């Protein structure tokens, strides 16, 4: 049923443009992995290579160790949920879901039970005779999902399946997708540019940019221990300042920057050339009593340029020399624009990223 996927040094060009510049990774059977990156980073191209719609120029794609580069899409036993849902407009819901069973030559006697089981899983019971155009976006996506799982594929592929849904529905359906995948135990690859979605849904995130993989990690580490400037900045929001390493003592690394000296507690850094200091807006703590700042923190002082009430949080944009840092604090604070203000960033919440 479920397979181990290996992508080995896959390269692909469109004319002069290299969409994939040698991508390698492995996904264990039954895992939910997200390819995350901005538009044009090669994530959909990679997904289409795995599905067999595109042939890599170089490199191999292996299902359970077997090379599938030459296997046509209809023989790969993958099932893909498309961004556009791609429902067959001339078929009703029942026939849409049945299509894969017919193509896979599943005995007729099994069709009805399997289709209704799939429809029940996605909450579409009783909609057999509806036409795709009679359904809402969320329902259409559920049909697409049922159509995928009914064939019991070895690999589930998702190409930004939720991007056409509204925010609330997106959250609901993504939980459903995750539950369904867990229940069925099918290896899944999910393409998205939405970092919140990636963090919420994945066992592992593969962050991509310009056709290369920037980091492969579990969601918590991707966010807390971003490997480089791109990942830190793309996943969530990061405050970044270029720095140069001065010295270290036991736990602490001392880094000089144009915004002063930072003490960083980060045991995960790989190198100390070409680095930036990074921290998250939500790790900035307002310092109300300047005479007694909290211990174990870097202090960042600047002029409050904007103070934006977001409802659940208050976002403060702080001008410090040539840089603007963003702080996200509890909504109860009143931090007036135009005043000088100091924030504290715990040593343990600052880290070193490459770039």
């Amino acid at each position, binding site marked *: 049923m479920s397979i181990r996927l290996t992508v080995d040094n896959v390269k692909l060009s469109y004319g002069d443009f290299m969409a994939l510049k040698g991508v390698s990774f492995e996904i264990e059977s039954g895992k939910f992995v997200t390819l995350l990156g901005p538009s044009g980073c090669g994530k959909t191209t990679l997904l289409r290579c795995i*599905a067999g719609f595109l042939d890599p120029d170089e490199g191999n794609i292996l299902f359970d160790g077997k090379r599938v580069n030459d296997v046509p899409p209809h023989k790969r036993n993958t099932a893909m949920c498309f961004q*556009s849902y791609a429902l*067959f407009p001339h078929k009703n819901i029942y026939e849409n879901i049945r299509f894969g069973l017919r193509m896979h030559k599943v005995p007729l006697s099994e069709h009805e039970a399997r289709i209704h089981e799939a429809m029940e899983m996605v909450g579409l019971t009783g909609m057999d005779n509806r036409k795709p155009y009679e359904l809402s976006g969320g329902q259409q996506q559920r049909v697409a999902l049922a159509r995928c799982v009914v064939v019991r594929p070895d690999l589930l592929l998702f190409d930004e399946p939720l991007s056409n849904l509204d925010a609330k529905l997106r959250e609901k359906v993504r939980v459903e997708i995750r539950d369904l995948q867990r229940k069925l135990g099918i290896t899944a690859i999910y393409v998205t540019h939405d970092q919140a979605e990636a963090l919420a849904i994945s066992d592992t995130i593969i962050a991509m940019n310009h056709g290369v993989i920037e980091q492969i990690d579990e969601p918590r580490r991707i966010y807390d221990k971003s490997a480089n400037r791109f990942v830190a900045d793309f996943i969530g929001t990061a405050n970044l300042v270029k720095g140069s390493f001065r010295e270290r003592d036991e736990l602490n690394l001392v880094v000089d920057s144009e915004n002063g000296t930072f003490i960083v507690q980060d045991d995960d850094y790989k190198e100390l050339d070409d680095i930036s200091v990074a921290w998250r807006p939500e790790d900035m703590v307002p310092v109300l009593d300047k005479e007694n700042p909290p211990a174990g923190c870097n202090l960042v002082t600047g002029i409050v340029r904007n103070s934006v009430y977001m409802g659940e949080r208050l976002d403060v944009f702080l001008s410090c020399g040539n840089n603007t840092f963003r702080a996200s604090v509890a909504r109860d604070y009143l931090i007036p624009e135009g005043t000088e203000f100091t924030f504290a960033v715990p040593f343990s919440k600052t880290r070193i990223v490459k770039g």
Partner: protein
Amino acid sequence: MKKRKKFDWGYLLLIPGIGYIGFFVIISAYVMISQSFGLYNAITGEVAFTLESWKNVLDKSFFDSLWFTLQISIVVSLVSIAITYPLALLLQKSKARKWLLPLIKIPYFIPGLVGSFLIVNLIDYHGLLNEVLILLKIIKEPMRLRNDANGIAVIIIHIWKNVPFMMIIMFSAIEGVRQDIKDCARNLGANSLKVLWHITLPLTVSSALVSVILTFIRTFNDYAISSTAGPMYPLSLSNLMKTTAYTYDDWTTAGCIGVLMTIVTVIFMVLYTILGKYLKQGGSKDA
């Protein structure tokens, strides 16, 4: 309190379009129908109600013409779609379509009469086709293709003229089938042939029907091609109408033929429309 429904003055904007078409359709239908009953005469102005022409028109030559024209139209529509559909599929996948497609469309823009002359010259008794076939010793005697009783020349010219016309419709219909839907079908286990059968074909069958209807009507009502390349007997209906009016000076009977031609055209339009709807529904249930 009930609100009175106000007249929407916006409907008046439709007058230039619908009014124009409606006016001319009604006028010409009125002229044709009243002429067939002797109630309209544009030449002498003498009018008198008569059913004489309606009694005379339904003779053997009319039925021969009707049958001949129907046969030609059906054969042309079916053969044209049989050529166009696979050709459109091939073209859609071909990299050379950028220059092949305009090339294929050329006959559509050439006037029927000119095309007719062109092809007649090729297939005539001592035309290029016969000469080459004799030279290659494939045939001994030249074949009579032009003005033959079966209307072979007419059929060939109509197909030559109608394939490009159908191509304009079918190419965009096939091109219009979304790639993600086809990809999805492949992903779910369909090979190219099954994608064609289960996806492309059902999604383009209504366009194919439309192009068959239009080709049928174009062929059924043609005058230029059948008058240059068609047989002396039976004449196509348009030819019969023209001959009746101009050669026999019998405008009343010609009016009857005109009415009958229009009725046949309308019957086929309705028939095809019903068929199209039925196929569309059937396709969705089972295809």
